[in-house]
């Protein structure tokens, strides 16, 4: 299979791959940041006392989780212009990725919060802390310890999902593979190189996840 594998072509396209690697990194990082913020907000809404808030967050989370990212991406890509909103492709892509991962982050954070002993919250109320203070000083720090691993897992998924942005012609790693393939008719070189770059990100995040498990978990003091 690989006897005809042409490393020269890959070398020739390396600057493009480097550029696209960086594009994948920053598109993912931007979406990740947005997704964590959206996740925290919608999780707080879902756990709030107001029925309307709970309803809105519930509809958002369930509808995102029950539909594929690609359909969501096309929904924004074709839908926003029909509403008269013209955005550059990459903004549409980041919005779709952010809203998609945001719903999963909301669920991860919720699981982390609900794993906290209810006595902690009662103690917070008894000490006269406000809702915001309880969130900030009691619940979130503990929830972070519970959730750092699934959060990194979702980050890995997000990086992989960003490959779908190539389908709305955003320049990133998968698009680089498609370009090389269409210009030189060498799919093996094109897509295996792309895959290799994704694997680099995957192994880095996986190693970080293993490390954080050992170092960053806030254990209860005894």
């Amino acid at each position, binding site marked *: 299979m690989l006897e005809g594998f042409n490393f020269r072509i890959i070398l020739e396209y390396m600057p493009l791959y480097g550029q696209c690697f960086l594009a994948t990194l920053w598109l993912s990082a931007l979406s990740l940041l947005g997704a964590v913020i959206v996740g925290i907000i919608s999780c707080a809404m879902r756990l709030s006392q107001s029925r309307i808030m709970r309803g809105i967050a519930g509809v958002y989370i*369930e509808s995102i*989780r029950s539909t594929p990212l*690609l*359909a969501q991406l*096309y929904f924004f890509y*074709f*839908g926003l212009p029909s509403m008269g909103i013209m955005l550059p492709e990459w903004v549409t892509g980041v919005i779709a990725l952010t809203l998609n991962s945001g719903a999963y982050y909301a669920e991860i954070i919720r699981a982390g919060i609900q794993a906290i002993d209810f006595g902690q919250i009662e103690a917070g109320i008894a000490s006269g802390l406000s809702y915001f203070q309880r969130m900030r000083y009691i619940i979130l720090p503990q929830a972070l310890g519970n959730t750092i691993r699934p959060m990194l897992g979702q980050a890995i998924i997000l990086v992989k999902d*960003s490959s779908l942005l190539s389908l709305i012609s955003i320049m990133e790693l998968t698009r680089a593979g498609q370009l090389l*393939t269409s210009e030189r008719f060498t799919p093996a070189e094109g897509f295996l190189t792309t895959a290799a770059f*994704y694997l680099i990100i995957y192994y880095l995040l996986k190693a970080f996840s293993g490390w954080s498990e050992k170092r960053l978990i806030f254990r209860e003091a005894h």
Partner: protein
Amino acid sequence: MWGFYFNELIRSLPFFLKGLWMTVAVAGLSLLFGTIIGFFGGIMRAGRNKPARIIVGVWVDLIRGTPFLVQIFVIFFILPGIGIELEAFPAAVIALTNLTASFITEIVASGILAVSKGQREAATASGLSGYQQLRYIVLPQAMRTILPPLVGQYVLLVKDSSIVSAIGVVDITRVGWLTVQRIPEGLMVFGLVGLLYFVICYPLINLSGFLERRMTVGSKRL
């Protein structure tokens, strides 16, 4: 104008149902094959044979570390280069089966490893063979851990099947993409696409949650 497009969309409903059928076919076949291969993989991954364990582990990492879109391009564009000509449909089923199998392998392996060691030792002491241990002692108990994430994986499978539209399989997403060229109302068209996925996925997500609650009853502290 909106009303006109709406009527047009209603008229193309049969086309959408065909797409729905294609999604169900691709996902259903991959579910069947992926589950079977995944169980074998999981048993190997949790087994005593070290080379088998390592090979399965590397395979799982390679599949988990790369985006599905890249995998499907590799299968669809590179395999013909080594003499295996594939239509889009079998390529989609192979790619999706491969993906699902790798995830189910991890689920099954962690389920098996979660069964306490004493159970196996007792089985060995009772003179059960390796196969008998697995069949009568370990797997029935592991199913409790395996079942909820397994159903969750089926949800992911249905959603990931949308990506096979990229190689031209006419599933729901592809139908949406083709329709939006004719009916330029992205929100409406992909709203319908999302709705069709929702109809499949939402019950499955709830089933997974139900199983999770049901299966943890036994081990819950009262």
